């Protein structure tokens, strides 16, 4: 059945179409309601419509939390616009609540005058009680500030899918597609890609395919045929550089970046990993890629994950391990071994709210100091921090380049927000990317082979891999001479400690300078973020600019070593505000390394920083500073 052949033909009600610059939408329901699929599909439609977009999925840690409970609410937020945007948005223009718990958990984020669509069939006494409502908020007028649109979604869905002979439970399961259909209509999205998607996804089960398509069409037609909505909306395409685009989330971008990094170096990619939220999707993605020469090893624990990666790197592969905070702690000793052996190693830490198990599905930037310093001894490692989901690709390629070139562990710090968030990505032509030279030693040098002799420029050691005749040697965790002979000579240790540190410091020679965004060139305040705070920093900058506050912004993507021009940049500004999703770890580092008394703005609620809060913080700070003069 093609779209337009639906049994529920549009009746042709005339609605006005209003063009918006940007809109923020959140779909919320029970964790079994299929909100993530709904959101992902709406995102795909939006990408095809040519809008810029940014998404934020939010789901409970429990796989099946009690039905209808606040703890079991799963949601998906999308920000779409006709221009470049960098955050999933703060206040919502539309909230779709599939039950009372979803309403309760999300209503505070709905902007005044925003639209609330609720599935009235789920607002039963039982469900209201579970959500902690004494009376029905839809009936008693409490969401008065909003345009409340009650739709008996469950009943309409069940009726629409009736011809397909599903049981009531299965029929109800399609109501996310009803919601998707309605949103697709309301925001004038092209429906064809979802139709194609459903037809392909359920190709093997015709009745499920039919039911999902029918529910999707029923939702679309509901908007078209009823007079509930006086206005529908359209968001024009955002101007973008020419090229081929797709939407991508941070975890997939990381996986692709690792694959491309290994490809550019002509070495196999090996991933040793132990399942941990929210990093596991990288393991899932790479496990599918055997046909591309990728090897994945689901290890018995975090330590074996990194251990196997070190073994693979010793054999000449790009050894990678993926994890989240608790796993990084477990891997610390082995990362120290890789520092000592001087082997390439990429460690991806998809940060989550800690310490300990913390909030495994929520975001945080709490592992920065652990990544830089969290090992025994003087154990320097390179630390990179991508700033957007798509940037995870570029920084994963960078991680591969630096690890292979310098024979060093590189820790790639992403986070839950980046890993699950999606945005459009301009797909690079990989034939145009610079190649990486692993530069393995294959011939016996005239003066004999010294495993810890170094390239004078990069200080990378000359590395020979097993199978190379004549270069047999041993490496180990004990301190050693250039010839890899065990040594307890104080002078040898002194020299080796310093040369390992110097090598990592020299990575700064091949990384780009910190780029400062200061259009007027006259700002005296700098917002200096790192990693995923890019979105909120940029959005706060936009808000401040609109209110006449002249600020500059800069994002650290290389946090160890830091860009060579950072000291000079810091000196240029009277005030440097460092926003972080932790208690001020980067601020501590900058103060210690540059003696610059930066202003720390921190937040640890498990969610990204709110650009509104950041804006207000900057304004309050400036007011206080002014007053104290």
């Amino acid at each position, binding site marked *: 059945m093609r779209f337009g052949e639906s049994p529920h033909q549009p009746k042709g009600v005339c609605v006005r179409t209003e063009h918006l610059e940007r809109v923020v939408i959140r779909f919320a329901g029970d964790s079994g309601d299929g909100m993530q699929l709904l959101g992902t599909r709406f995102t795909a439609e939006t990408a*095809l419509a040519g809008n810029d977009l940014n998404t934020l999925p939010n789901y409970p840690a429990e796989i099946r939390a009690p039905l209808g409970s606040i703890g079991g609410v799963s949601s998906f937020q999308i920000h779409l616009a006709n221009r470049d945007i960098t955050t999933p948005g703060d206040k919502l223009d539309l909230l779709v609540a599939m039950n009372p718990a979803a309403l309760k958990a999300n209503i505070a984020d709905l902007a005044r005058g925003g639209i609330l669509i609720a599935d009235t069939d789920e607002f039963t006494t039982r469900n209201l009680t579970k959500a902690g409502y004494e009376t029905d908020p839809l009936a008693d007028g409490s969401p008065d500030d909003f345009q409340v649109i009650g739709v008996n979604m469950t009943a309409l869905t069940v009726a629409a899918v009736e011809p397909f002979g599903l049981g009531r439970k299965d029929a109800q399961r399609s109501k996310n597609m009803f919601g998707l259909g309605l949103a697709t209509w309301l925001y004038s999205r092209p429906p064809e890609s979802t139709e194609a998607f459903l037809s392909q996804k359920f190709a093997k089960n015709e009745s499920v395919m039919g039911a999902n398509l029918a529910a999707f069409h029923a939702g679309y037609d509901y908007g078209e045929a009823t007079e509930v909505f006086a206005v529908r909306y359209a968001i024009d395409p955002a101007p973008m550089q020419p090229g081929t685009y797709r939407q991508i989330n941070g975890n997939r971008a990381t996986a692709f970046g690792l694959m491309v990094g290994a490809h550019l170096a002509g070495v196999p990619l090996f991933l040793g990993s132990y399942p941990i939220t929210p990093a596991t999707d990288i393991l899932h993605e790479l496990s599918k890629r055997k046909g591309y020469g990728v090897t994945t090893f689901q290890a018995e624990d975090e330590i074996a994950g990194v251990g196997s990666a070190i073994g693979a790197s010793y054999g000449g592969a790009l050894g990678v391990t993926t994890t989240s905070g608790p796993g990084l702690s477990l891997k610390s000793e082995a990362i120290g071994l890789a520092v000592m052996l001087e082997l390439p190693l990429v460690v991806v830490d998809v940060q989550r709210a800690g310490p300990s198990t913390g909030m495994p599905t929520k975001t945080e930037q709490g592992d920065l100091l652990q990544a830089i310093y969290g090992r025994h001894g003087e154990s320097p490692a390179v630390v990179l921090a991508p700033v957007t989901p798509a940037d995870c690709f570029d920084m994963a390629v960078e991680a591969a380049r630096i690890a292979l070139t310098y024979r060093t562990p590189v820790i790639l710090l992403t986070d839950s927000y980046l890993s699950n968030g999606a945005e459009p990505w301009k797909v690079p032509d990989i034939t145009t990317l610079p190649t990486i030279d692993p530069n393995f030693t294959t011939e016996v040098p005239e003066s004999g082979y010294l495993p810890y002799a170094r390239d004078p420029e990069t200080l990378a050691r000359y590395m020979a891999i097993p199978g190379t005749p004549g270069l047999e040697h*041993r490496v180990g965790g004990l301190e050693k001479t250039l010839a890899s002979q065990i040594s307890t000579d104080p002078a040898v240790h002194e020299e080796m400690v310093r040369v390992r540190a110097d090598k990592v410091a020299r990575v700064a020679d091949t990384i780009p300078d910190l780029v400062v965004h200061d259009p007027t060139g006259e700002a005296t305040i700098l917002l200096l973020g790192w990693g995923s705070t890019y979105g909120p920093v940029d959005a706060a900058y936009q808000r401040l600019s609109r209110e006449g506050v002249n600020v500059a912004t800069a994002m650290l993507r290389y946090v160890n070593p830091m860009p060579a021009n950072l000291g000079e940049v810091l000196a240029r500004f009277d005030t440097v505000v460092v926003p972080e999703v932790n208690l001020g770890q980067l601020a501590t580092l900058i103060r210690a390394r540059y003696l610059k008394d930066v202003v720390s703005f921190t937040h640890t609620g498990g969610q990204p920083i709110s650009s509104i809060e950041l804006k207000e913080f900057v304004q309050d700070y400036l007011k206080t500073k002014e007053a104290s003069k």
Partner: protein
Amino acid sequence: MSGLDLVPQATTPTTRKDYVPANEVRWCPGCGDYSILATFQSVLPELGIPRENIVVVSGIGCSSRFPYYVDTYGVHSIHGRAPAIASGLAISRPDLSVFVVSGDGDALSIGGNHLIHALRRNMNLTILLLNNQIYGLTKGQYSPTSPLGSISKSSPFGSPDYPFDPVTLALGCDATFVARALDTDRAGLSSAILAGARHEGASLIEVYQNCMIFNDGAFAASKGPDANVLPLVDGEPLVWGEFGLVRNEYGQLVSARVAEVGIDAIVKHDPHRVDATQAFALSRLKDSVGASAPVPMGIFRDVERPSYEHVLRDQAASAHMDGDPTGHLQALLVGPDPWIVK
């Protein structure tokens, strides 16, 4: 099926001397490790593979200094993790013969998790577990194989820990090759190492190793003319001295005088049996025979099962895509739902 199927053959034969590096060996004088090292170096040429395709990986402990003393490629890693590191290497480099040299503390205490998983996965590794029933490098604490009640620096009142038997443990992991040998028994140790290295999958060889300094004589009963040892010989009756093993009414292996029951009544050794029951019973003779039980020496189990790497290679072969890898990768990046901005 051999664990060396994908390892190239040596173009020129190697000799023991090729495996002796210039650096000085620094174990205590009289340490059992010396004889194990000498046997290991003399066995390697018999594998017929190039020196550069051999890698020895170790953890931490006296025995873990081993790689420094074998002139091949080698990694002296961190405590307990050698099987994990060796697994990553063996998976990504099927052209290498990878050995793990470990001790009772390294393999069974801090690294117990990695050992059991390497064994159950049937990783193509040859694991030498040098068991001296003591922590030597940290100067004499009881280990996971020290007998109950052992007096040591950390157990002045006797060790309260019930010990592991490494062979029992390995069989419990469904290891496909399990053997035991004695540091001073060059012939027995040589044949165990050779068979283990040629075996496809994980081979665990427990080597009784005497620590002169902290646990001297721990294996005295297994040595010398009066050694109470049961040699495990494929197809031969399980006999030692005047005794042999017979099955009792419960199916247990118990001792009987051969002269009384006749040699035909004695149970024969068959390490190739997939059912590991008899191998397991041999590892528990103290339970069925009692305190006078001999120590079985030789190959307990040697069965065929594809290695982890073998299964992985088959998967990779079936997933392989013909044509230009760069083109395939580019198509993957673009994905099924791209859009073009002009």
